[in-house]
């Protein structure tokens, strides 16, 4: 199972903090948004509205970053701290 966390406006727009995906449904980071939409079609508009940043196990990920069973993935807008 893969845990997916949402932050900031993405969390608000989806009205969801955390989702799970079946382990086999994603191989790399680029698969994540299509897999979330397949599991939750009502999220398509928000998830496709802009590119979101992605982390895998608390490190920033690229589209080719591998996702394994048990990983914690997060999707969020560009960061604005400081």
């Amino acid at each position: 199972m893969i845990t997916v966390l949402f932050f900031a406006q993405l969390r608000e727009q989806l009205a969801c903090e955390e989702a799970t995906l079946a382990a086999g449904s994603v191989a790399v980071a680029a698969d994540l948004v299509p897999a979330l939409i397949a599991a939750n079609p009502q999220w398509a508009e928000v998830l496709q509205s802009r590119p979101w940043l992605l982390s895998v196990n608390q490190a920033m990920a690229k589209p080719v970053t591998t996702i394994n069973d048990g990983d914690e993935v997060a999707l969020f807008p560009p960061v604005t701290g400081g």
Partner: protein
Amino acid sequence: MTDVVEHDLVQVQQEDFSLAEHYARLEQLAGNTGAVVFFIGKVRAESEVDPVQALELEHYPAMTEKSLSRLVAEARERWSLDAITIVHRVGKLAVGAQIVLVAVSSRHRDEAFLAARFLMDNLKTRAPFWKKEHRASGARWVAAREQDDVAAAQWFSQ
């Protein structure tokens, strides 16, 4: 907490911080320190017409200190530094409140200035914090600024 070296401090907290206390910590460590640079970021009102009343800072707790510690390690690879402090607040902050402290001590001023700038530029684009502004007209998430990306990218352009 983090894998930063003994002289370094990375903290994410709701409470305010004291510049004097953090300076005192650096003073205790000072061996060959000849320069200390402090940066403090604060909450701005932004506008007279519809001023920001408060700023809400959200973060990704499991990732935040890891990201900041990675920046500290990268700064240490680039420059010879005595001690690094990063303190970042989260939660709801009033106008004028302190948001972030970056302190760097080193033997000479160039390293301290450069490392402080590097840490702030990269913290703004690589650490998982998000700001939401509260105004009389409503609340909205702050958009990322392209100039922040440009500032952070310049450190990796050579």
